[in-house]
């Protein structure tokens, strides 16, 4: 399969496919971060995670339209406001859902799965009724179009670079919040021992609500970033949900580093394979490998050692 290409071509192919893989990696990381917080820290399976992401994408789309209409001079910078709005919208909806639905089901994880699936169906239909069934795409500001020429054969698109920088930034912020801030310590305390955390004065219900809200908010930001590289439809979220769950499980729940490592390996495998075979077979092989490894090592790549 390598016979037709020269060494230099092969190098370029790997770099370009590697870069395509990095963009996929960024999307996976952004989606999986929110899920890793909700599933990893709280043990809640949120099947509506993709729909929270799509909410962020629609908020971004609305913001970009509003800027085009009313503030065309500020249009190049609309994205930064849109991201904040997406975070707030998804986070607020997430906290509402936690209050109305999830908190009644903490002891029944399988039932949470079914209930959030129901929620995702309702949200999908709501998007379809409000925004229409057709996919929408945002118009990118001028500075995000085009690509950077690295060498003669290697080019990288600017919006991809932007999404990657964004991913790094958000990951750093999340890591800081979870591991260095006071609130993050409370979250981890509740995860490790809910009863003791409550006994030392942590308001565990409040921590739960904000954790869920944060996870959903990050999903909203992911959706916002997603509009940079693809169009958004009512069911786009569902396409990614299983992949994202596999990323989180494969990385080892409750491990931020594991999530990043698994998102990296899965996305790189898939995009490299995609060059040599059809996209569907590449996906099948990647998913099969992940499921196979999970069968051999159910705790995932990076397992947290906790006494049960």
């Amino acid at each position: 399969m390598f016979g037709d290409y020269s060494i230099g071509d092969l190098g370029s192919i790997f770099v370009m496919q590697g870069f395509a893989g990095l963009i996929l990696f960024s999307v996976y990381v952004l989606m999986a971060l929110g899920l890793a917080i909700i599933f990893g820290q709280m043990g809640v399976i949120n099947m509506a995670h993709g729909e929270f992401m799509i909410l962020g994408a629609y908020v971004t789309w609305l913001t970009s339209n509003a800027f085009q209409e009313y503030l065309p001079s500020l249009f190049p910078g609309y994205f930064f406001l849109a991201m904040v709005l997406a975070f707030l919208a998804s986070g607020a909806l997430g906290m509402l859902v936690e209050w109305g639905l999830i908190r009644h089901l903490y002891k029944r994880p399988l039932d949470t799965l079914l209930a959030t699936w129901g929620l995702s169906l309702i949200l999908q239909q709501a998007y379809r009724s409000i925004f229409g069934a057709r996919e929408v795409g945002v118009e990118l500001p001028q500075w995000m179009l085009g690509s950077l020429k690295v060498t003669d054969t290697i080019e990288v698109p600017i919006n991809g670079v932007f999404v990657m920088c964004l991913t790094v930034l958000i990951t750093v912020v999340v890591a800081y919040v979870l591991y260095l801030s006071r609130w993050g310590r409370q979250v981890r305390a509740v995860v490790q021992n809910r009863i003791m955390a409550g006994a030392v004065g942590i308001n565990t219900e409040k921590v739960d609500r904000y954790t869920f809200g944060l996870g959903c908010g990050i999903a909203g930001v992911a959706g916002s970033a997603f509009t940079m590289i693809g169009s958004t439809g009512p069911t786009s979220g569902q396409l990614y949900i299983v992949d994202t769950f596999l990323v989180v499980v494969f990385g080892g729940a409750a491990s931020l580093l594991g999530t990043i490592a698994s998102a990296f390996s899965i996305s790189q495998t898939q995009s490299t394979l995609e060059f040599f075979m059809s996209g569907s077979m590449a996906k099948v092989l990647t998913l099969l490998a992940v499921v196979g490894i999970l069968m051999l090592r159910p705790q995932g790549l990076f397992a947290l050692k906790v006494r049960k």
Partner: protein
Amino acid sequence: MIINSRFFNRSELIGFIALAALLFVILPLSLDVFRLNLVAKYLTYAFVAIGLVLCWGYGGILSLGQGVFFGLGGYCMAMFLKLEASSVENTKIQSTPGIPDFMDWNQITALPFFWQPFHSLTLTILLIILVPGLFALIIGTAMFKRRVGGTYFAIITQAVAAILTILIVGQQGYTGGINGMTDLRTLKGWDIRPDHAKVILYFFEVFLLFGCILLAQFIRLTKLGRILVAMREQEDRVRFSGYSVANFKIFAFCMAAVFAAIGGAMFALNVGFMSPSFVGIVPSIEMVIYTAVGGRMSIFGAVWGAMLVNFAKTSLSESFPQLWLFGLGALFIAVVLAFPNGLSGLWADYVQPRIDRLLASRKSKMSNGADSSVAAGAPAE
């Protein structure tokens, strides 16, 4: 606790007779063939739902990949029917006569090796049971021997459903792709399309369904059923008592897979085609809701759940397509939050006590105040 040694207790017997009367007598007499065929389609999901009662309700293993087994069973049946429909006489215009039309469109000139067994009906029937059964055995062994369960198991079965769908859609030349296998005509020379054939197939399916109900009821009553419940409640205690928890889980999962596969095969026969849209993640989760609505602990409830949810789906999506997804979503949430034991739970809580009271008062009137507690039988599970 008094163990009831009879096969059905009183309320289960009533449920059994009511269901039998409905499916064997009332529906065939009152519906036209088109509607009866729709009921037959709904009932194919009842097989899956019964399997889920054993696996999820009793064993506590939530599989979100039942569509995989439904699909495997359905595709096995469809492959046999498709081969029969693409005989050399029927496919004279193709560049390679004697192979299914979609293979010809995809420039495949010889029948692939894994299609060969489907020339024989006996082998096909065996494979309908064996392929999904073995597949479930492999997944179950890999997962349960390593004590993977609960939500992890659910996610991995879901991933398997996703993989199989992508594979079927991608390998168009071997599987018919996204369109699936259409234009199925005859079973051993007997045309399955006209009305009288549909009626016969309906009755055949109902017989099979009752066979599965009786088998599930038998499993539920044996020691095996009790161990499954014990395992769901306190897995470690069962393990410490010396039982191999993994083997019981594998058995329950394989049973559910085989039931689902029978349902899938009946689907291919009754509906006349099979496509990947019955395999993936969305249909797999919908199959869980049938069981949840009927009551995850009730075998009869599962049949009712499958029929009612599908009936609601057909009638709602015919007249108000937007409402259906809202309704289905609300149903998921309501079933989890408000009535976790489904319809059979509601029946046992509200309807059954009234019937018992009514019967008890009549009986006490007749026997003039004799022991009335006899009639207050145990509520249906």
